[in-house]
Structure formats: structure tokens, C-alpha cells
């Protein structure tokens, strides 16, 4: 997984450099790079969630741990958060100042935690007698409060800051649904006959955009094939209140990865998936704005978070088969015929 991540990062940097040295600015390449960068943002957010889960498991008191574990957890969280903020600022440079100001606040808090000699016994610890009163555990409990306690103000915990950053980036990306269609059409990207889906090959079109439309069935993208397996063609729509309405989509695909985005005005729906049969890598992430009822779309087992802008949902750390079955179900649920 690490090799794949390093390889992906390397390719992305080459593409970004390639973009800088070419005189013509092919918008499709920018679009593909944006898609890859958004996936990096997801990957780093996932890394943060994994760190939180590890800390939550350790704090229950079953483990022999030392202060070094806790300080490593703090350092790793700050590093991951920094990587995520970097991704967000590449995607939306105008957010840079605000995001880095908040990030610096978290870095300062992390420094305070590392240097603190007498961690507090938090309310959580007092309430939960399972949590040990050893200083290492008290520090770990403080760290977990910083990571994901009750936010005193927006973004005051790392996970709340992460979610806010996500939503801000998504909101920004979604404002351009119409311009994305224009971009695709102006670059001679067209939908395959009878299809409602613009399809881009994530890596090939990032280098040399294709002038021929890709058919969703011709391109070798495992998650897309799974999504369409039980669907009514590629005629997908999350707009369940209007069964006859079909939606326009753009899918950016590679063999194991799919980024699917709706291109309708006043509607936002993203699906990101990796299906590689390598369990630690496989996941599904969905964002749906408040106009979409995800209860009818998501199969069981998704973690969901409600924000003012819409719903974040994800499934990860589960068997590859579960991810595959979930994609088939989502495709079926998005298919108007079955609604």
C-alpha cells in the first residue's frame, strides 16, 4: 500500500511538473490532477482516522504503552493533518491562509501536549473507570480529546477541522459543475452514444487527453464495472424524488480507482472508490448534499457524518468482498428503474 501511495504521489508530481512546463494548459489534465489530489486528501484523512482509531483502542487500558507511543501519535497526527491541509491548499489555494492559521493552532496544541508533565484526568476518564490513571494513559486521553473530543468551537478538534476542511473543499469543487461540462466539451470529451457519463482515463487522459469517447463498459475499471453491474445501463441518478430524471456524470477511472461526480446544477454527489482486493487500500467514500436522501442509496455498514452542507459517508477497513458488494448495491440503488 505504501509503495502504491509513493508511486501515486510520484506520478502526480510528474504530472504537475509536466503541466507547468507545457505552454498549452489542457484543462483535462488539470481535472485529472485535481481528482488525484482529492484522492490524496482522502488518503490523508483516512490516515488521521486510523491514528484516532489506534489511540481509541489503546486508551482502554489493555495495552502496555509508554510515553513514546503517545508522543509518536501526536507527531503522526500533526504530520498527517499537515499533509491533508497541503492537499486542500493545492486544490483551493485561496484557502491557504485560513487553513494554515488553524493548522498552526493545532501544531501549538500538539507541542503543549508533548511538553506537558502532568496530564489532566479528564471528565471522560472520571466517567470511564476502564481508563487507567497512569500518566501515559492520562496523556493519551488528553491527546484523544484534542483529536476528537467535543469541539469547543468549529475546528477546535483535529477531526472537526478535518471535516470542515473537507466540506470547504467539496463546496468549492462543486460550484463548477456547469463549467466542468463546458471544459469536457471544449476538450472534445464526449459521452459514449446512449450514455449519460463522461468518462476519463485517470492516467492516460492526464497525459494525452483522448478525443474518442470512452464507453463505461470498454474501460478496464473494476469499481465502475461493479457499480454498473446491476444498474440500468449507466443511467444513474441520486435524485430519487424524480424517477424519470437522469443525471449527467463524469467518471475518472483507472483499473482500481473510480472518482464519480454528478454534473447537475444545484446538486452535489461524489463517489470515490478503490477496489483492488488489497483490503487495507479498498474503500468507498460518498458525499451527498442535502438535496439527496442517502438512506435509499447506502447499504449497511457505512460510517456517516452529517454536516450543514451535506452528508459524508465512508466504508473502509472491511473485507474487499464487502466493498465490492456495497458498490453493486449502490449502483442498483442509484438506478432509477429500481427506485
Amino acid at each position, binding site marked *: 500500500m505504501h509503495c502504491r501511495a509513493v508511486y501515486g504521489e510520484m506520478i502526480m508530481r510528474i504530472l504537475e511538473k509536466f503541466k507547468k512546463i507545457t505552454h498549452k494548459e489542457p484543462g483535462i489534465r488539470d481535472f485529472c490532477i485535481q481528482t488525484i489530489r482529492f484522492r490524496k486528501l482522502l488518503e490523508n484523512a483516512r490516515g488521521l482516522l486510523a491514528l484516532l482509531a489506534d489511540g481509541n483502542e489503546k486508551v482502554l487500558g489493555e*495495552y*502496555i504503552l509508554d510515553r*513514546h507511543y503517545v508522543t*509518536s501519535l501526536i507527531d503522526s497526527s500533526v504530520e498527517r493533518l499537515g499533509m491533508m491541509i497541503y492537499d486542500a491548499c493545492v486544490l483551493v489555494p485561496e484557502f491557504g491562509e485560513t487553513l494554515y492559521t488553524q493548522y498552526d493552532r493545532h501544531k501549538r496544541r500538539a507541542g503543549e501536549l508533548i511538553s506537558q508533565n502532568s496530564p489532566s484526568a479528564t471528565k471522560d476518564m472520571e466517567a470511564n473507570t476502564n481508563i487507567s490513571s*497512569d500518566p*501515559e494513559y492520562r496523556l493519551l486521553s488528553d491527546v484523544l480529546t484534542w483529536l476528537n473530543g467535543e469541539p469547543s468551537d468549529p475546528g477546535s478538534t483535529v477531526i472537526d477541522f478535518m471535516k470542515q476542511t473537507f466540506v470547504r473543499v467539496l463546496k468549492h469543487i462543486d460550484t463548477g459543475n456547469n463549467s466542468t461540462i463546458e471544459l469536457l466539451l471544449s476538450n472534445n470529451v464526449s459521452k459514449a452514444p446512449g450514455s449519460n457519463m463522461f468518462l476519463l482515463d485517470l492516467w492516460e487522459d492526464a497525459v494525452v487527453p483522448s478525443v474518442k469517447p470512452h464507453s463505461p463498459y470498454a474501460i478496464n475499471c473494476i469499481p465502475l464495472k461493479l457499480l454498473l453491474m446491476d444498474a440500468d445501463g449507466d443511467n444513474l441518478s441520486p435524485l430519487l424524488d424524480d424517477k424519470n430524471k437522469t443525471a449527467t456524470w463524469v467518471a475518472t477511472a483507472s483499473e482500481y480507482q473510480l472518482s464519480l461526480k454528478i454534473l447537475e446544477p444545484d446538486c452535489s454527489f461524489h463517489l470515490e472508490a478503490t477496489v483492488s482486493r488489497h483490503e487495507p487500500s479498498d474503500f468507498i467514500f460518498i458525499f451527498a448534499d442535502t438535496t439527496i436522501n442517502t438512506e435509499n442509496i447506502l447499504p449497511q455498514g457505512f460510517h456517516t457524518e452529517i454536516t450543514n452542507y451535506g452528508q459524508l459517508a465512508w466504508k473502509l477497513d472491511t473485507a474487499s468482498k464487502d466493498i465490492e458488494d456495497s458498490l453493486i448495491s449502490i449502483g442498483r440503488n442509484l438506478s432509477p428503474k429500481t427506485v
Partner: protein
Amino acid sequence: MSKSLEVLLLDDEPIVGRRLKPALDKIGCHVEIFENPIEAVARIDEKEFDIVVTDIRMEKMNGMQVFEHVKKKWPRTKVIIITGYAKMELAREAMEKGIFDFIAKPFRPDDLRQIIARAAQALGTPIDLTLIKD
């Protein structure tokens, strides 16, 4: 009744001894805990332990030096190294030098009990982990 395993446990972080001693008592070990490696080595000079469990990174004397000392004095003693987070490479090198096994923090007491049971088996004094005393 079989003789209990004599275990010396050395870690400069007090939490380790405080939490591991009761866990090892439960499988019938007689455990002496030390936070200072100099004091631990002095005790090793006095007494042959079946098993020495030592942290690798300590001030004054590191775990490998403790291991070398044990090997010279009591070649039969099995030494188990506790490594810190992300020190696995160091631990693998240690195994090549004759360490019985290593365990990386954070770990569960039962993870160490499993290693102790294997060490006991190698010493010819097996212990039954299913008979953990509450």
C-alpha cells in the same frame, strides 16, 4: 507443584513493571521488577533468572548491554527485548545476536505471556496459559 519461573523485568518506564508484574504473576511467574539497569545487572550477578525481559532504550545502559551481560554470566537464561515504537529493525538485529524474542510497544500483556510460555517451553519448564489465575 512445579517450580515457578524466575523473571527479571527491566524497564525505565514505571508503567511497564507496574502493569506487567500482575499479568505475569497470573501465569505463575515470580517477577522482580527494576527501573534502573545498573541495579538490575547487580541483581543478575547475584541470581540466575530463567527469563530476563528488558527494554532496549534506557539511560546508563541499554538493553543490548544487559543482554551481553546476561549471556556471559548465565548462558541458559532467555532474554526478551521490549522495543519502543518503530524500532523493529533494531530488534531483528538483536535476534540475530541470540535474543530469544522481542516485543514492540504498545502490546497487550497476553502478547508477552505467549512469548514467556515459549521461553518456558524452551527451558524445559512449560507453563499452561489456559490456567491463568484470576
